[in-house]
């Protein structure tokens, strides 16, 4: 694995076989997720029922309390949160039956990969940035970090493909989409500063090669990618904080709005199918 990769040339494109495998794997995974039937659950007879007070435990009737929260910021905030995120929406045990495709799984896959990135990253930062170069255990933890990042981006991008083709921004979900793009953008910065923090040939060259784009924008005056200390701090603290914070917002927005209805619902799905035929 340490010898230089084989590169494929066609037209003006030059790509390494490992990169080609990753991209090919992502496309294959997306196609498989589209085509492989999702295990069917037995439908719940009734549509979703509102949670009963005893389910939510300490949550009182929001409408009644709304009448008395006038002027009390704390009670008003609590009521606003409770109205938007009742427990049965925050931790649901039912979901629409149309959420029945493997394509829906890539979001949670990306979250799981992020958890492993965070765990392996915390171990790496605890032992210091040179540890993984001199310890076989450290190299193994770094390898988990490396492959978790590859999985995170693969799942995030496939999730983005899926949400695009499902038009997941419909019915008041534009902000969820925008926050998702924000997570992806900050993740690219987090990965970039991670590559700069490797303390090896790759990090040296990425710093030299990447400085021109940063400097061209004027950001190089205070975001100096040749300054290892600055990049390391940003990588282990600021950007992960940004990714995780926006991820929390992303998840809360999903729990707030629920999962968007299928395109063409309900017409295309009616029993006699007069509006459209299945292609």
């Amino acid at each position, binding site marked *: *694995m*340490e010898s230089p*990769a084989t*590169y494929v040339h066609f037209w003006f494109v*030059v790509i390494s*076989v490992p*990169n080609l495998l990753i*991209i090919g794997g992502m496309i294959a995974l997306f196609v498989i997720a*589209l085509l492989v039937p999702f295990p069917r*659950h037995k*439908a*719940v007879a009734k549509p*979703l029922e509102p949670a009963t007070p005893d389910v939510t435990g300490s949550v009182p009737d929001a409408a009644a309390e709304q009448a008395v929260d006038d002027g009390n910021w704390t009670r008003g905030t609590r009521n606003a949160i409770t109205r938007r995120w009742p427990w049965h929406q925050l931790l649901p*045990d039912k979901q*629409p*039956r*149309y*959420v029945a*495709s493997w394509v829906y799984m890539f979001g*949670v896959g990306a979250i*799981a*990969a992020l*958890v492993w990135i965070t765990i392996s990253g915390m171990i790496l930062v605890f032992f210091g940035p040179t540890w993984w170069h001199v310890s076989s255990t450290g*190299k193994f933890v*770094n390898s988990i970090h490396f*492959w*978790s990042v590859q999985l995170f*981006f693969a799942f995030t991008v496939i999730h983005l493909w*899926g949400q*695009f*083709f499902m*038009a997941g921004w419909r019915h008041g979900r*534009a902000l969820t*989409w*925008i926050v998702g*793009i924000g997570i992806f*953008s900050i993740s*690219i910065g987090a*990965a970039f500063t991670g590559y700069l923090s490797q303390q*090896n*040939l*790759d990090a*040296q*060259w990425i*710093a*030299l090669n990447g400085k021109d784009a940063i*400097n061209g*924008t004027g950001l190089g*005056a205070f975001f100096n990618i*040749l*300054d290892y*200390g*600055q990049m390391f701090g940003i990588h282990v603290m600021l950007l992960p904080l940004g990714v995780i914070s926006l991820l929390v917002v992303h998840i809360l927005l999903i729990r707030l*709005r*629920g999962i968007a209805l299928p395109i063409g619902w*309900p017409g295309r*799905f009616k*029993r006699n*199918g007069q509006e459209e035929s299945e*292609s």
Partner: protein
Amino acid sequence: MSRKKNWDQDTYYRGVPMAPYDLIKELVAALLIIGLVSLGLAFALSSPDSPSVTIQSWSTADPVDFVTTASAELAGTSDTAGYGPPYTDVSGAAQAIGPFAPQTWLGDPLHLDTAQVFVLGPLTTVSGNDQALTSALATFKGATSDQQQAWLDAYTTALDGATAENGQVTVAAGDYGPIPTLMASELATAQSGSLDGILLTSPQFYQTNYTAPLLFMGDGGYLSSLADQQHLLGSQWGMMNETGSYPGQTWLWLFTVWYQVPPFNTADNADLLVVVLMGFLTLLLALVPFIPILRDIPSWIPIHRLIWRRSAFAGEADSE
């Protein structure tokens, strides 16, 4: 649907058949599966780690390239010396799109005099009791700038035919003034490893800023030749490549593509053009929900019919 009802799922899901779901179990399963896959990949494939280059290893492996680079730093003709902001105040060097030149807005806060920082400063530091070096430094500093330039021009020309033997660089005889002495000391300092430390020096004990040594190595040809071997150069789609046989930052593919095609691949301001273009495209992606033609594409492409199969719950939509 009213604004209030926008977040009311009971209203939104009216008439929608529901299925049992276990969010926590799904998350735990994903954590276990992804954890096992990560562990498996880490165990089977490890991770890339090509050793870093030091000024010591560079000057030892390719002394002629090192001396050529150091001479350019002293002459003020290196890439860094002519870079412009944020390293130098060379006018007209900054990238711009017409009058839009953000690179110049904050000046050169990381100012770096290449002759002083890379050559004269370190040599002054190590001169100590070295009379020959002290004398050469005094001669160089005491000379007029025209004389300095003449020595450096002659020496730089001679370096084209330079040879390296036993770690020393030899050039044809000529009138180079104190330059050969200065460069011999610079090379010896580098080969001993001292220059790596000197270039990191700041008023603090702890050092984490590698701007100077990285720029110095970037001006030479040795580091870029190693990057070339690993397909890391910008012209090789290097931004998305990795050392060894590992996948790189494939998610930078679009950023990388622009540098390979006209007009970007020949433009002096390619970096600024690409960054502005990518910023615009990212904004476009974020605003897809509000852009009529873009937001309609999913309904034209029937991929959604594979995701939401009518056959999976035919007829249930009219159960309300």
